[in-house]
């Protein structure tokens, strides 16, 4: 069981900054995120896009913002459970919570801060009628263990980075790799497009474009796919695996069933006070919450995280009174023994 002071659900910018504000109050944090990396939408959807409204950064790439936040919170040694989705929550008699992920990892904390953005990222499933029947029976939307494709025939569909990168990677693992895309042009990085071209020329990847997988064949396991090429030409391929890689889209998911008040796909919070939900001890901050006048901006998430941590402190230590100190005055003392503080003035006499 992982124990912490504040359990943060969602490792996007708001969740990450919460670690810093909590750290100033000597509260430890642990983050859960369904994605395999921190950064939320900033790293998953638009890492190379600039953001212009982060205070003091006239321009910063979303990916760089994530890196900076990780650097800023490093002294507070946050824990991470990545690649797992927060599934259930249980309130114990002492008003603390146990949150369990879809993989069974349990987390225990007196405070839960939901910083889940638009929800957890789920793979986008192409609208092929029998696709759900073959899930984990030859259809995989996410590649977890590339070894299962060793010496197998694999067809990948999609036109972005993941489709290209996995086609390249599996070219050395699988016995046959076929990449199917609706167009001849790909959206992925140029290097990857060039590499796929190279592997295609070398006969290591078969490219079928412009084409779309329309049907999955097999009984208990995928045995083939049927593809429509050039609009009306039907091609049937014998394959062991079909890997549709069409990116991820966020879904509020299991959090919607935690008994929290939901309005317009977001969690209602008390913004006059501390961003607490209708369940005391559970807060919602950043894009996942709603209140009158809500703006889904990263900078608003930072503010909400800051106030939420103050309230969390009072809830954990009801008898203590916290006196806010500016970091310039008090410095930043990490849990790792590091200490940052403003340099002392140098006094020098003039004789």
């Amino acid at each position, binding site marked *: 069981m992982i124990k912490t002071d504040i359990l943060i659900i969602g490792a996007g910018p708001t969740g990450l900054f919460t670690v810093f504000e909590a750290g100033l109050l000597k509260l430890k944090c642990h983050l859960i995120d369904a994605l395999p990396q921190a950064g939320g939408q900033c790293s998953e*959807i*638009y890492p190379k896009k600039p953001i212009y409204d982060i205070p003091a950064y006239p321009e910063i790439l979303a990916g760089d913002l994530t890196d900076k936040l990780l650097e800023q919170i490093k002294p507070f040694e946050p824990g991470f459970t990545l690649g797992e989705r927060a599934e259930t929550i249980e309130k114990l008699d002492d008003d603390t919570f146990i949150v369990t992920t879809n993989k069974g990892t349990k987390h225990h904390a007196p405070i839960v801060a939901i910083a889940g953005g638009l929800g957890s990222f789920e793979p986008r499933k192409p609208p092929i009628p029998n696709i759900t029947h073959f899930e984990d029976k030859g259809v995989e939307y996410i590649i977890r263990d590339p070894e299962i494709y060793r010496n197998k025939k694999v067809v990948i569909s*999609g036109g972005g980075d993941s489709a290209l990168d996995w086609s390249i990677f599996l070219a050395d693992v699988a016995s046959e790799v076929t990449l199917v895309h609706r*167009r001849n042009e790909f959206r992925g990085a140029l290097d990857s497009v060039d590499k796929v071209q190279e592997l295609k020329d070398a006969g290591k990847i078969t490219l079928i474009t412009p084409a779309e997988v329309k049907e999955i064949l097999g009984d208990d396991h995928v045995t083939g796919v049927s593809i429509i090429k050039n609009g009306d030409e039907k091609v049937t391929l014998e394959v062991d695996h079909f890997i549709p890689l069409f990116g991820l*889209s*966020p879904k*509020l998911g299991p959090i919607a069933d935690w008994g929290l008040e939901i309005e*317009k*796909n977001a969690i209602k919070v008390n913004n006059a006070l501390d961003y607490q939900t209708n369940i005391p001890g559970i807060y919602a901050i950043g894009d996942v919450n709603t209140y009158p006048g809500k703006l889904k901006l990263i900078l608003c998430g930072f503010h909400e995280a800051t106030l939420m941590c103050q309230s969390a402190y009072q809830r954990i230590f009801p008898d203590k009174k916290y006196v806010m100190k500016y970091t310039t005055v008090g410095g930043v003392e990490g849990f790792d023994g590091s200490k940052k503080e403003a340099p002392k003035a140098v006094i020098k006499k003039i004789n």
Partner: protein
Amino acid sequence: MQKQKLLGTNMEDITIKITDRDGVLHEILAPTDMAMNLMEVVRSYELAPEGTIGVCGGMAMCASCQCYVKSDHELPEMGPDEDLMLTEAFYVEDNSRLGCQIPITSKLDGLEVELAPES
């Protein structure tokens, strides 16, 4: 058909007919002087649930605002981002566009669109 109006709309508004994902037709007024795009208009009128449209915020990076253009209005040409995003979207038709890439201008008065299914 439901006729609706955003607060603060005025003479410079245009009329757009939007069929939502449940097949309900809405005739709405959209301002041409607020630098809005079609996706933002759909969100303002709450014609699709929050979280199911405009997920990427309007960067042509998610296709959640895909719509079918039913009228023959002259639309801004598709940029490469929109073009390639549509190659990865589902339920794409010849008249598919991303709403976030269509700015509201006076030329679009009378535009008729239908929202593509959620995916």
